[in-house]
């Protein structure tokens, strides 16, 4: 199974805090899986364990069919990991960063030039080769970090919130690169706090309070939402929300930007309340599903 990931009943705690609570997840080679969840869900702990940077307390964690406890060197050689924080050298140029990681991962000199050329092309960083990494924009920094991660052509990529704090255009560009890599057969596990990025993954794993609540294709996930969902807009969302929560049998009322998502069981329906500018029944989004799963898990 080149590049596959297999997690079986994995748990990890820091002192008294249970960071990851008995999760299981299997990722096939060449699959792009998104790990989605709020801060503190256990995403980073899971990823660091996959990268052999943390040791599991319980359960089995395999990368490329190898145990992260015993096969540290072999896994590190075939895996690419991009930590959450920008972890390159700001006082080195783009080219010096790439060269350093190429040498660190033992990329043979004969292949290095070609490899760098490919990476420059897809990251469009070539014109900035001599710029200090610290002087790059957020999006370019992330592309450089990804390039450094890819320098040794890893079969498995672990990316910890690579698009956090990056502008929307650069984020789209970044995801295009990820899907391109997936098409080349690289197994990718990527975490993100952005729900809309879930749709770009082959499968999505929802993580919350150390547990995985659901794993499925984005299109399938929305079918897990068991209620009727209405979108309500109005000028005074707070009082609309209070009214819907107190005076109707709404199961949940969530604020989504400038509108409300209100869900009802099959027996009830929403009658447009006073003050509502528009009411319409809609298909649930991934975020609706996640909020539903979070509520029901508590």
């Amino acid at each position, binding site marked *: 199974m080149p590049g596959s990931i297999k997690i079986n009943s994995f748990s990890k705690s820091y002192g008294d805090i249970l960071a990851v609570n008995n999760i299981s997840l299997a990722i096939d080679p060449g699959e792009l899986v998104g790990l989605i969840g709020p801060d503190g869900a256990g995403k980073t702990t899971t990823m*660091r364990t996959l*990268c*052999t*940077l*943390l*040791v599991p307390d319980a359960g089995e964690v395999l990368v490329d069919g190898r145990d992260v406890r015993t096969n*540290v*060197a072999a896994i*590190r*050689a075939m*895996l690419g*990991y991009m*930590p959450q*924080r*920008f*972890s*390159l*050298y700001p*006082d*080195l140029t783009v080219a*010096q960063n790439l*060269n*350093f*990681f190429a*040498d*660190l*991962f*033992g990329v043979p000199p004969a292949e290095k030039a070609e490899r760098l050329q490919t990476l420059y092309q897809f990251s469009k960083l070539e014109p900035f080769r001599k710029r200090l990494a610290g002087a790059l924009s957020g999006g370019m920094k992330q592309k450089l970090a990804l390039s*450094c991660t890819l320098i040794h052509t890893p079969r498995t990529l672990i990316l910890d919130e690579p698009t956090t704090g990056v502008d929307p255009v650069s984020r789209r560009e970044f995801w295009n690169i990820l899907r391109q890599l997936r098409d080349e057969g690289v197994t990718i596990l990527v975490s993100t706090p952005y729900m809309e990025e879930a749709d770009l993954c082959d499968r999505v794993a929802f993580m919350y309070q150390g547990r995985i609540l659901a794993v499925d294709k984005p299109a399938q996930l929305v079918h897990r939402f068991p209620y009727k969902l209405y979108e309500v807009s109005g000028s005074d969302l707070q009082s609309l929300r209070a009214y819907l929560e107190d005076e109707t049998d709404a199961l949940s009322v969530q604020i989504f930007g400038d509108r409300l998502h209100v869900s009802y069981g099959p027996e009830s329906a929403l009658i447009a309340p006073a003050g509502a500018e528009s009411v319409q029944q809609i298909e649930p989004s991934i975020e609706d599903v996640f909020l539903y799963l979070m509520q029901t898990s508590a």
Partner: protein
Amino acid sequence: MSRIFPIIIKEFIHISRDFRTLIVVIVLPVVMLFLYGFAINMEIQNINMLVLDHSNSPESSSLIRKFSGSDFYTVLPFDGTEAEIETIFANREADMALILAGDFAAEHARSPETTVQILIDASDPNAAQAIRNYTNTVIQFYNMAHGAKPSFEITPTVWYNPSLKSAYFFVPGLAALILIMISALLTSVAIVREKETGTMEQILVSPVRPVEIIIGKVVPYIILAFLDLIIILNIAYFVFDVPFVGSLGLLIFCSLLFIFTSLSLGLFISTKARAQQVAMMMALVATLLPTVMLSGFMFPLSSLPAPLRVLSHLVPARYYLVIIRGIMLKGNHFLQLLPQVLALAGMAIVLMVVSARKFKTNLEG
């Protein structure tokens, strides 16, 4: 092992881009040498001597001329009362007073072993001691010239630093202080910086081995510290005229050993500290104070209280001071310095082994 080289190169790029490190490495030793070498001066010159000559005789004038003829004394004739001397001492206008009684000439004629009164401002005991010795000598010469026969004569011959120049003593000591500070400080900060900024996480997921990271991180600072050694030795020899009696090769060998011990100390600190500030404080506390107080840099080890004297065995500079003073001033050869060399090597090995074991290859703990 091929991964050591890229780490070394990267470290040099960091250093070349970090103006402050370069300042610390090159300017600090020079400033410290000049400050200590010129400002701290334990030699006594310009002794201001009040002279109350109640005798006013050819004999007393002859004695006073002995002092005024010397390079060390500035004779200040004084005809006030003895009570006024205290005010003059308090105002630091004189360091000592020589009082010749009215019957000085008569006494001297009767017996050449005359007594005179000397008052010394001993608020600085070291200086007072030196003044007393100088003055005694001058008076003794005077008495002997007039027929006194001392029961025996003490003629001290001071070896290795015959004119007791402070610089000969301080400059080699400063070499020890500068080398251990620079080495321990820079190494620990360089490693902790990677932990703090998260780049260590990125390095650790590569197939690089801990020993390769350690060597790659340490080698550049060996080179920097060696550069400092060259600067220090040149200033010592050409500016302060510190003699160089022994073998330069042996000194360089021993200095590299000392630098290596200091770097190991820095490495050990880096396994404990998580933030650069903490590493910096730890490095300073571990090097500056012990090196100044407990190594024989300023105060002789024999004058330390017993518990501190025991503790001083853990201070690397203690051994290096014996080595560098031994080689530069005495021309010691290798076998004479073997115990010190072995002590330094032992410390380096223990610190290295402990640090290499403590060096985490993951983020646990």
